[in-house]
């Protein structure tokens, strides 16, 4: 199965939008509250069908994919993810193997070990979720998504509620995953994060596409001013820019 592109068709809310996503790229979806960012991500994850239009995955309509096939290809981390029971990190990460019903035990353990190592959680492997800090918890939840070994990583505001250092470390790990050839699509609130760490930024405004392209174009000062309604100016060097508002 070819997973080279993830095409989003026309959505009634996201009017006139046709987007193609690429593997090996970090794409950030930005926009003010209520712009339709989470809806777009849910559509891309195959959880919600678009009102109209269609989403194609590897050339096939998304809704024609079997649940398990879709689950193995697209890893999705919802906004403010919960863990209902006080699982250990290892057991939590192993939940990511659920879509691989028929895989061997050795293969599953290898994927779990790799995901734990990728998120630097070896020391916390047997610790319970309730005993983790916010940053460790976010990494454990991300490791759960990685354990599925999906081609695509979709995360809805994964950096929310993380402090500066933890957010930077998680962003670095998303970059590592895209360097490994995975497609990474993130809903980001923090425009500076998107500016400095994404390969491509999609800006949504009230359900329509406001900008799409390299961060310096899609998040240019005039776009920020038009979409967010406040005058803003980028300061600093490329890769370490900060947004000065007002």
């Amino acid at each position: 199965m070819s997973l080279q592109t993830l095409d989003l068709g026309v959505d009634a809310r996201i009017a006139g939008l046709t987007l193609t996503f690429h593997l090996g790229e970090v794409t950030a979806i930005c926009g003010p509250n209520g712009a339709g960012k989470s809806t777009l991500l849910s559509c891309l994850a195959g959880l919600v069908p678009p009102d109209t239009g269609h989403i194609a995955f590897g050339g096939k309509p998304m809704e024609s994919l079997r649940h398990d096939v879709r689950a193995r290809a697209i890893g999705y981390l919802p906004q403010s993810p919960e863990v209902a029971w006080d699982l250990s990190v290892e057991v939590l990460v192993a939940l990511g193997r659920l879509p691989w019903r028929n895989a061997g035990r050795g293969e599953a353990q290898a994927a779990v070990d790799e995901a734990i190592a990728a998120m630097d959680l070896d020391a916390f492997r047997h610790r319970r979720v309730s005993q983790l800090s916010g940053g460790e918890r976010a990494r454990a939840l991300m490791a759960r998504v990685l354990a599925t070994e999906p081609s695509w990583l979709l995360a809805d505001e994964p950096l929310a509620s993380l402090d500066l250092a933890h957010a930077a470390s998680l962003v670095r790990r998303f970059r590592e995953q895209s360097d490994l050839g995975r497609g990474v699509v993130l809903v980001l609130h923090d425009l500076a994060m998107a500016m400095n760490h994404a390969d491509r930024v999609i800006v949504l405004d009230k359900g329509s596409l406001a900008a799409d392209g390299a961060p310096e174009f899609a998040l240019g000062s005039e776009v920020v001013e038009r979409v967010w309604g406040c005058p803003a100016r980028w300061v600093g060097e490329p890769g370490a820019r900060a947004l000065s508002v007002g």
Partner: protein
Amino acid sequence: MNRRLILLLLAALALAVPLSLLAGRVWINPFVPHTQNAALILMQLRLPRAVLALVLGAGLGAAGAAMQGFLRNPLADPGLFGIAPGAALGAVLSFWTGYAATPWVLPLFALAGAGGAMGLLALIAGREGGIALFTLSGLMLSSLTGALMSLAISLSPTPFAMSEIVTWLMGAVADRSWREVWIAAPFTLAGIGVLIAAGRSLDALALGEAAARSLGVDPRQLQALMIFGIGLTVGASVAVAGIISFVGLMVPHMVRPLTDRRPSSLIVPSALAGALLLLAADCLCRVMPLRGGELRLGIALALLGAPFFLRLLLRMRRGLI
């Protein structure tokens, strides 16, 4: 870890079953083989009663574990939140209409009642409803079915039907025969099988509904499995023994710390521990000296379960669960 726990519980059951057969109003000493009517007491009274306690305990334990996993709520119990009362309402209607004497009608009514109540609860509270909404919906369902049952009792066609309903509602495995075992066992085992099959989806649901769906879980299919599995286990139990609450609440809590805490790892150990709990509780009821008969199993478990529930609530308030 799970295999060791299951073996341990099986060993405990292997020890408890023979012991339970000896205990009762007439104590049977295995080393003095000439107790009067020993064979009769064992084969016709105690063995079916013990097997029934095992079957029902297993069903209620598994149903509690699955229900807590499905609703992501450590307080969920089929007996407390309207499922068993729903089954009881079904059964009462079969008494009331006079069809209860026809074989299989009472169990079928009870199964339909349990499945219907579970479906209604899932519909009202949903899985995103939170603990408060769920608890209130369960209580509402409980009081509604309770009111309808009282209505059926007060309008019961004969005093005989009325006393039959009231006695049966109190929950017991006393004076049950192999007939009840044959009614309950197939439904309960089928129900436990359905709940085990739902285990992987319940594990995924620990991450919330959106994440579970992204892991390939079909929520409608899971809901159908839960309604079916809980309907079968709880319906079968209510059909032959009336309402026995708190088993489904207590057992998963006792077992959970000994497992990896995934809902799927909890179902089989909860079934075994439920069987053990109900067997032990029934034994206790049998040997407890009580004027005018023996303590009813449903009442004994409610007396045991209510303080347990209170302790859980207090621990939750302190954020320990």
